[in-house]
């Protein structure tokens, strides 16, 4: 199930906690802060690199077909400081990701927060800032 919800409060809170340093390219030039998005899907790949990492997820589309989305993250060090590691991601794991949609309409998102569904089910710490 794909959810598209507005998360202004979450985004505002995360923005305040994740700092304002963007490397290489501008966040605002690529992503629309007025277009918040929440995606629920399964992890297919994670590239943990500077200056920004990428999380690839498969999201069931409205007509049932699989859609691949790419979520741009902040720098790995920034995510690590907030308790998130590359090894926390398992291919096939279900995640919910909130962020800002790409201005060009592509299936690309500037990720702000990731929630690991299995951890949430177990009552463990499940949500982490992606630092983008």
């Amino acid at each position, binding site marked *: 199930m794909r959810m598209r919800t507005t998360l202004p409060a979450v985004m505002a809170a995360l923005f305040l906690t994740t700092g*304002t340093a963007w490397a290489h390219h501008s966040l605002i030039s690529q992503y629309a802060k007025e277009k918040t998005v929440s995606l629920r899907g399964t992890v297919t790949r*994670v*590239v943990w690199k500077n200056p920004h990492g990428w999380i690839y997820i498969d999201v069931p589309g409205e007509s049932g077909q699989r859609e691949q989305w790419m979520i741009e993250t902040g720098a790995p060090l920034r995510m690590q400081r907030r308790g998130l590691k*590359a090894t926390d991601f398992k291919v096939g794991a279900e995640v919910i990701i909130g962020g800002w949609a790409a201005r060009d309409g592509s299936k690309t998102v500037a990720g702000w927060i990731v929630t690991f569904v299995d951890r949430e089910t177990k009552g463990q710490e499940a949500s982490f800032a992606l630092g983008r």
Partner: protein
Amino acid sequence: MKTWICLIGLAASLGAAVATSGWTAVAQTRDPRTVKELMKEDIAPAADVIFNYVAIDVTLAGVVENAPKTDAEWAEVRKSAVALADSGAQLKAQGRGREYDKLAQEMTDAALLARRAADTRNVSRLRAAEQAMNAACENCHQKYWPRSDQQPNGR
């Protein structure tokens, strides 16, 4: 014999001085390009080469920590590190003040760590240098960003 040893020593010292002078001081010739052009054409591509070589890839095959392996790959890392160090000197040549110079030198210093890692084929050092590079990037971008690319808080 002593004369030869002295000459070799002198040559080595001169070589070292020439090799580092462009990085520890402001570049002798000012690049006419803007900071944005330097970033787009030189700095970002050079940094990306190094960043990509030490990326961690999580796939169905597991977690793979990438690293340069062949001579050609290490040479590419070294070339990018040198380009980045030179770019730091070029940024200093823009003459924007001591604080800006300090940030530019930080990038150069991090790039020189990467160059040394390449010279010794040391992956751990390269990872440390890569972290230093990213810190230099972020430290500078917190202060400086093109006006046409304003950040959400208007900086």
